[in-house]
């Protein structure tokens, strides 16, 4: 007993269990949390280097700030906090428990008189009668009483609100329980195993069979949280856990098959719900479990929970037409591809790899102005995202839309492209002909690419000229036009402007010359366009739509100069295969955390809304049969809270309320 007592008062324990240390730790925890929210966690290291530069990147990495919540020092602060609270509870429990059960019936008359709430008086009744009366009164108001004979009289000691102390235990033990529960679910054991060298993250995206054996986690792992994408009709018996800069592969004791995956959309095109019909099969099951899961409705099986968390593409089949953009050929080649697969292409202009990355069924964009129906969003319909990589490994990123888009009455085929992640996407709009096809534009482009075709147009103007001087002039003009159109075809309007900057030194004249060039060029290209139109049938006079088509074509040719590899991929059809993104967890700590939480809530209410209060009534019988009384009260927090009630009882006990000691205004 003595030993225990001395241990409890050991300076180290006193320090660890002190509120000052607890507060310091709490503040550290709060600061770490702030850092964790301000510094984006678990991004690729490369992006941190760009953000902070190599020096600070290293400093922050050493401090483990890129994954604060599983940093060693963070866990150490948490552990110390647990220790601190445990020590506090340990130090306090004995006297708190004693306090809960004690009536403090040993309080002496002199102490009662000194209390903040204390009155004295006399009554003519005998002490036994007053005792019964007072006991009844106390009990009616929720106090528990104990009667003790002392100080030449009878003491009724009463108490209420012992639950307050219980609240202290509940809240503090709850926090310890919650942290322990969370620890059960944390990945700390992998970190330990990593130190011991038995676990290593896999960083490559490779086939499951090739994964580093040290990244394979056996079925018996008792807690994890991982995710897996399963295409429709396929099944999986592993999940991937993110760990360090890579992942671990967790084996499951069952297989999950995704039979069907569905996304429903609102009329705006935003997703409304997504759900999967799944079949869970395990050796111990007589019948496989068939069910449907959706967001906010997981499947619980044994200690596992299977959540619908996202969706992606499960290898949609994409049919494409590849239009050559720099040849005089007008027939596209047909290709078949699959999302997440790569197609190699050998073309006369070089070798390319077409990487199909994703198929999106909806593209909802915000409109600057509400449309006719008052909607502020618009759905551009499905699109395919892909990259085209050249032989040097340089890639451009594209997103091509399947549906034609309308702008002011004309229809276009839309494509977005950019050269790097850092750039914004740029739009290419190719005008569509009356058949909603690219044919006319592509034929026009082929004419533009075809030197002979252009020569023919330009020569037709010269042919009839007989005057040799003029003919010579026209020849010069023709060569100039050819150069101009070539320049435009290769570099666009910017190319011509660039040329002018050298050719015309006076900056203020450039715009005028530019417009002249534009006119010359337009005349030539109009000739080509007319020829293109004539391929469709005789043209008497061009109509408004055809003229607009021409203007749009020139704009498109201009954009094409920045479009990258000279192929346009037209998506002709997509056979959609979806993949359901599942998250599968095993978290034995969850119920522990919930239990702790319940305790915490109950404890908090006990602490705040149960007030520990005590009353004492000392009855001292006098010789003449009357009784001398001392009535005292104490509130665990603040005597003022008890005072109105105390005054009320004073009246009921027929004592004149005396001046209350210790009351300060």
């Amino acid at each position, binding site marked *: 007993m003595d030993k225990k007592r001395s241990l409890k008062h050991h300076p180290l324990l006193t320090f660890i269990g002190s509120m000052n240390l607890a*507060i310091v730790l709490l503040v550290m925890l709060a600061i770490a949390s702030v850092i964790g*929210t301000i510094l984006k966690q678990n991004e690729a290291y490369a992006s941190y280097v760009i953000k902070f530069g190599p020096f600070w990147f290293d400093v922050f990495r050493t401090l483990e700030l890129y994954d604060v919540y599983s940093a060693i020092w963070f866990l150490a602060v948490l552990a110390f906090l647990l220790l601190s609270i445990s020590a506090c509870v340990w130090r306090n429990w004995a006297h708190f428990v004693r306090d809960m059960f004690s009536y403090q019936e040993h309080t002496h008359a002199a102490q009662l008189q000194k209390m903040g709430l204390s009155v004295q008086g006399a009554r003519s009744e005998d002490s036994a009668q007053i005792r019964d009366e007072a006991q009844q009164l106390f009990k009616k108001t929720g106090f528990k009483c104990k009667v003790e004979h002392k100080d030449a009289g009878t003491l009724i000691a009463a108490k209420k609100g012992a639950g307050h102390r219980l609240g202290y235990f509940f809240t503090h033990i709850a926090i310890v329980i919650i942290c322990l529960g969370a620890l059960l679910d944390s990945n700390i054991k992998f970190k330990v195993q990593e130190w011991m060298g038995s676990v290593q993250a896999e960083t490559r995206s490779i086939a499951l069979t090739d994964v580093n054996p040290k990244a394979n986690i056996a079925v018996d792992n008792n807690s994890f949280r991982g995710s897996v994408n399963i295409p429709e009709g396929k099944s999986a018996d592993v999940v991937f856990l993110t760990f360090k800069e890579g992942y671990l592969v967790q084996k499951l004791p069952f297989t999950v098959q995704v039979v069907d995956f569905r996304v429903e959309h609102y009329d705006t095109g935003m997703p409304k719900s997504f759900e999967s019909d799944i079949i869970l099969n395990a050796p111990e099951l007589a019948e496989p479990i068939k069910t449907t899961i959706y967001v906010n409705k997981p499947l619980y099986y044994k200690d596992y929970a299977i959540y619908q*968390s996202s969706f992606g593409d499960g290898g949609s089949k994409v049919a494409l037409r590849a239009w050559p953009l720099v040849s005089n050929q007008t027939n596209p080649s047909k290709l078949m591809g699959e999302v997440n697969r790569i197609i190699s292409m050998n073309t006369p202009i070089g070798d390319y790899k077409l990487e199909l990355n994703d198929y999106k069924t909806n593209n909802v964009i915000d409109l600057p102005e509400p449309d006719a129906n008052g909607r502020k969003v618009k759905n551009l319909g499905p699109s395919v995202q892909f990259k085209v990589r050249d032989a040097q490994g340089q890639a451009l990123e594209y997103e091509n839309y399947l549906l034609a888009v309308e702008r002011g009455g004309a229809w276009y085929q839309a494509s977005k492209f950019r050269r790097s992640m850092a750039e914004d996407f740029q739009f290419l709009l190719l005008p569509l002909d009356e058949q909603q096809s690219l044919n006319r534009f592509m034929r026009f482009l082929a004419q533009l690419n075809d030197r002979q075709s252009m020569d023919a147009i330009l020569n037709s103007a010269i042919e009839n000229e007989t005057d040799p001087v003029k003919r010579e002039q026209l020849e010069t003009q023709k060569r100039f036009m050819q150069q101009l159109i070539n320049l435009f075809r290769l570099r666009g309007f910017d190319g011509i402007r660039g040329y002018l900057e050298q050719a015309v030194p006076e900056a203020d004249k450039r715009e005028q010359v530019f417009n002249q060039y534009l006119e010359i060029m337009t005349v030539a290209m109009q000739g080509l366009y007319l020829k293109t139109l004539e391929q469709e049938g005789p043209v008497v006079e061009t109509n408004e739509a055809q003229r607009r088509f021409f203007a749009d074509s020139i704009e498109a040719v201009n954009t094409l100069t920045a479009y990258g590899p000279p192929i346009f991929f037209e998506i002709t059809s997509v056979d959609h295969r979806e993949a359901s993104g599942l998250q599968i967890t095993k978290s034995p700590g969850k119920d522990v955390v919930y239990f702790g939480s319940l305790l915490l809530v109950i404890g908090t209410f006990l602490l705040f809304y149960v007030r520990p209060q005590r009353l004492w009534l000392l009855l001292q019988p006098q010789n003449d049969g009357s009784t001398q009384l001392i009535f005292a009260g104490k509130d665990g927090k603040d005597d003022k809270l008890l005072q109105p009630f105390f005054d009320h009882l004073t009246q009921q006990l027929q004592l004149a309320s005396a001046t209350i000691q210790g009351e300060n205004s």
Partner: protein
Amino acid sequence: MTAGYTGQLTLLQSLLSVRGILWSLFIIFASWLGWDRYGELMNANDRSYETGILIGVTLGGIAFGLAWKSMQSLMVAVLIMTWIGIVSYAAHGDSYKAQETAFFLKFLFSSQSAIMWMNFLFIFAMVTYFFALWRDSSFAGKVATGLTWSAVAFGLTGMGVRWRESYLINPDYGHIPVSNLYEVFILFAIITALLYLYYEQKIRSRSLGGFVLAVISAAVSFILWYTFGRDAAEIQPLVPALKSYWMKIHVPANFIGYGTFALAAMIAIPFLWRHRIEQRGDSSNPWLTRLPTLATMEDVMYKAIAFGFAFFTIATILGAMWAAEAWGGYWSWDPKETWALIVWLNYAAWLHFRMSKGWAGTRMAWWAILGLLITTFAFLGVNMFLSGLHSYGSL
């Protein structure tokens, strides 16, 4: 400040009075009516939970009204106003566009109009409270209290009608209006005002009204900017992750916490002011008779924070339980979650200093104000500056 001991009336005793019985029957009738009319709109898969929540709300409503009599008149007024709104829509073929033509909707009870009334009344109430304090006018004080109650009534009506409107626009869109920043700001203004009104009755002084209404008016200014600058009042469909009965309980519980923390911080201002006057020893200063005593204000601050802390604890735990169901983990260190923890730790420390170390006075008052700054960041700053799983309320 020692109020006489009036005897404690238990909830059971007030339930068994004539008024208590009438009140309970009224609430049960209103709930039944709601269930009868809209029962089939409850999300079919969660229907048992939704029914459970409805029963909980009914019992909670009864208890609330019994514990705080003023609630009864408020709830009756709100239910009648909301009913007029819903019926007006029904009379116009349940067309959402009716709010542009039907008289009651256009000028009073469509969610847009009702919320505009709330905004106006709150600001008017703040001005009136300050006027009452300045002129020491008890009449103006009473008017201010009336304005605040009316603002609350209009705000709750606006929320109720908005709930209905979301179904009128498109049954697919239907949801309780606590799903985005615009809607929760309204909730914040209403809850903070109700908390204030409760303490106003408790301490029998209207002198703190202007200060508390100032933070509500700040919220109102935000609502106005958000409405006109960003068109935020438009009813949007819910993202899949929010389609859950959890939203109905997690969000309001959170805002009880936010409301009390704001209330405590605003009371800290007159507290510090009075403290300065007292320090100067200027006992003839007229403000000393108008403002409540330091002890009273301190007590309200403490009670508000304790109450809010308890609810904030519940809200955070409910949030964790919802996250476990929606995101697959009860704690993901998402910025919003993390800031909720920071707020919680802050007030846990505040309560420790007060309960165990006996800190009091100006230090605690300043800390309460600091607490509001932290809370505001958790409430608004996270949405503005940090991204994460809680991206629904982004600005």
